[in-house]
């Protein structure tokens, strides 16, 4: 999945293309790496966590029915934890994107739109 940098320096049209130039820049590579190294593992995490929950509910209902406090059982707590994890991931991502993605992305955008590539 990882994108290799365009090889050719020979093709003058491509070099002149600001998109390709921006794309092959170190800044952009860093931006892409930052984004992917956050969202891919996070996606893998929340999907596994979600499907673990779905599979437990489908195939281990006795475990999910174990009571913890009063009428509140493991299944209900697991379900509520899905809400908690979703809210937490959302907050984490926003903080991450605001701090680590937006500044560098903004710089690249300005350079592309300003024609300095």
């Amino acid at each position, binding site marked *: *999945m990882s*994108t290799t940098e*365009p090889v050719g320096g020979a093709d003058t*049209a*491509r070099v*002149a*293309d*600001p*998109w*390709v130039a*921006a*794309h*092959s820049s170190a800044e*952009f590579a860093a*931006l*892409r790496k930052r*984004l992917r190294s*956050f*969202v891919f593992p*996070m*996606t893998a995490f*929340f*999907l596994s966590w*979600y*499907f673990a*929950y*779905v*599979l437990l*509910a*489908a*195939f281990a*209902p006795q475990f*999910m*029915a174990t009571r913890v*406090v*009063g*009428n*509140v*059982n493991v*299944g*209900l707590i697991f*379900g*509520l934890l*899905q*809400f908690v994890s*979703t*809210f937490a*991931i*959302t907050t984490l*991502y*926003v903080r991450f*994107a605001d701090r680590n993605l*937006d500044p560098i*992305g903004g710089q*690249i*955008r300005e350079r*592309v*739109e*300003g*024609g300095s590539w």
Partner: protein
Amino acid sequence: MTGLLAQGAVGKPLLNVGVFAFFVLVTLVIVYRAAHRTKTAADYYAAGRSFTGPQNGVAISGDYLSAASFLGIAGSIAVYGYDGFLYSIGFLVAWLVALLLVAELLRNTGKFTMGDVLSFRMRRKPVRAAAAVSTLVVSFFYLLAQMAGAGGLVALLLNVKGTVAQALVVAVVGILMIIYVLVGGMRGTTWVQIVKSTLLIIGAGMMTAWALGSFGLNLSGLLGQAAANSPHGQAVLEPGLQYGKSVTTKVDFVSLGIALVLGTAGLPHILMRFYTVPSAKEARRTVVWAIWLIGIFYLFSLIIGYAAAALVDGGPQRIASMPGQENSAAPLLAYQLGGELLLGFISAVAFATILAVVAGLTITASASFAHDVYANVIKHGTLDPDREVRVARITALVIGVLAVLGGIAALGQNVAFLVALAFAVAASANLPTILYSLFWKRFNTTGVLWSMYGGLVSSVLLIVLSPAVSGNSKAMFPHADFAIFPLKNPALISVPLAFLLGYLATVFSKADPDDETKFAQMEVRALTGAGAERPLAAASAGPPPRASLSTLSRSAASGETGGVPPKEPVGAGALSSAFPTSTSTTGAASQPATAATDTNDGFRRKIVITAVVVAGVTTLAVTVSMNRVLATSAPVADTTPQLLPNTNADVGPEVAIPALGQTIQAGTTPNFVAVAPNGRQVYIANRTAQVITVVDTAINQVTATIPITAGPPQFLAFAPDGRTLYVSLFNDQRTVHAIDVLDTASNTVVATIQQPARPYLAAVSRDGHRLFIPNHDTASVSVISTDTNSVIAQINVAPNPHWVAFSRDGTRAYTANHESNLVSVIDTTTLEVLATVPVGASPHSIAVHPNLPLVGVVNYDAGTMSVIDTITNKVVATVPVGKNPQDIAWAPDGRFAYVVNEGSNSVAVIDARTNRVTATIPTGNTPTSIAVLPNGRQAYVSNSKSGTLTVLDLTG
């Protein structure tokens, strides 16, 4: 209140209409005020990109919290318990896919539609066409579901009955929707969504606080009460009630889980909302707001669902029996908590929800047609934006009319099924392509076409072949059977298949020309927002990009059509230009490329056809093998029983659900049916005709009619050897009180025993020597020697004994005493009353369990069955069964009890192990009694007002 409910409506229909009308008026004003600003394409499709993230987040949650999910999830939790909660978790977690992988990149790359993004670096026409087809399919199924749902909701709230009236409601919804869309465009519908969504969340929050407050903020207490009220008991708090039946249903649940979590980020009407904000950062804020609002709302609906089960009079049983079935849970709870006003408010919000969601769907579908198909495929992008908007408006009108017609046709169809279909198709056809386009450099046009058409065809085909469409009584076509795919939800197969097809097709085909440069451009745009569509106002204020960019980008984007128009400065031309690749060629520029395009088109057509065929064949192969695999893994040994009958999404191998057999004409007023001990005949007492009708159970035909001259026959009791039948007689004038002794060999009356006062259902002791007769009006039981036909004792019991039954060992007799709400336990040796057991209101009939120390009693006015432990003489379970249960019988093996509900014209089946109602079977008019054959294969129900016997096939 019961009076109102008896008519089927909740609250006062007139008040409801008033509140509805007020809401509609308010939304129309909003739409009208928003209208004067809707002029351009970006206005119409994307509200000028002028909404803020929070505004759009509220609107998007309004789109998402459709009536199906608002009423449906709360209702599922109320009736099926925990399994309803699972839906909301899938619906919520799905937003992380949108947040992390899709929303911002999509906003940066596209203009108005999903097709914009997908066609960015691909060959435009075939990809746009594919995106439009998939958008139209998904949106149309979603529209149908909402339209059909509107009919059902209004039926509940306004007491609108009958197909014509409901069709009228659908038409009104359609007309309002067209007005919203045509007048208000995206801006108008967004404002409607914002208002509605805010009210919905406030209303749900109020109900939650109120419900929790009535339990002193004790969640456990609320859950406990919900479990106590549910026929399923504690199981409503645990997973598995709806999906735990067998391996197939469990696999089906996992499949549904996939569709839910991956479908959201592929729903076109959700994706399109990301274009209504000015930037990717606002798109991110949109999703964040949406996640918080939707998450909080689903937490509310968890409480609302369980609170409806705990607080609504009659509990889950009544909710499930209302016109809107489980969808009525939230409105009923609103009525219970806040009376008419809160009910009116919640209902009007639900109605506004439907209007707003259908309007959003219509905009999406019309945009996809006008922008992707008409402007870019048919007109090759030569259309000016004004014309395009005009086409979009005409399309909206056509879609509105189609949706009304389709909605009327879909009335009474399974709404949940249509929504699940939309999610499954979105997850299969759209999401793989979106993700590949955004993240995989090598991905090409061939891959898009294979993945989209493959996902579309396989998901639709699997649904057509699923048990939701045919092969069982709850299917769309119950009388046909082509359900060779065992799962109701296709996502488990179709989503991986779409990913695989996209991958293989890409790997085995040539890369698109200039793909590398176009991908570079797309990725830079996607990640940084460079060159992204700007908001209208902000764009004209902002500095236009330098000309060098537009000139340069031309070379980057010289794809199939051989040329692109010079990119206009964003400030002036944002509407018409978009980014170079996705808008079009001018007429002149495209000329040289025409020939190449034609051959390309032929080639693409071949690819599409092959993709469709291969996807179809693969799907069929997978279907058959899947069917084999799941068929060999038989249902779990300890089968959890099937749920209530009205399970919308519930199809599967059926256990514990008797099938309706034939109906036998059985005289004018068959009021009681009894099975001969050998099981060969059933005898039916016909009161007004004063005859006993005999039916042969092998052929289910009447073989004899025995006149009873002494008076109207009411109840029948066989001696254990079957040779003698005791017939209770009394008349309305209270002049006849007797027992006729009938010889079953000759079918003649051999003796008549006079009784003091209205003999109800008698019983012969296990040894055959004594007959116990409950005397209704004297609160006593006569004990008669069957050898001499003379009274040997009188036992006084609590008032109005109706029914008597002996324990298995014969040492006890039990009487159900109607007016005192008591069961008397009689020692058959000493003839003394040993105990009286309090049961529900008006115990009518009683039956002893064939092998466990249990007695079942049905309580006529309480609508319940009480189960008495005969060791402790205490009630151990109370099961709501239906209205006015009049008779009860056990299956010979004791696994199930069958209860006849005179007031709801049904037989309820109760699992003896779990004390849950596993099925409710419709009968004829006013069923009064039931008798089960000794072999347990069939049961006979007497329908006193339709003059028939209903035969139930108990082995399914």
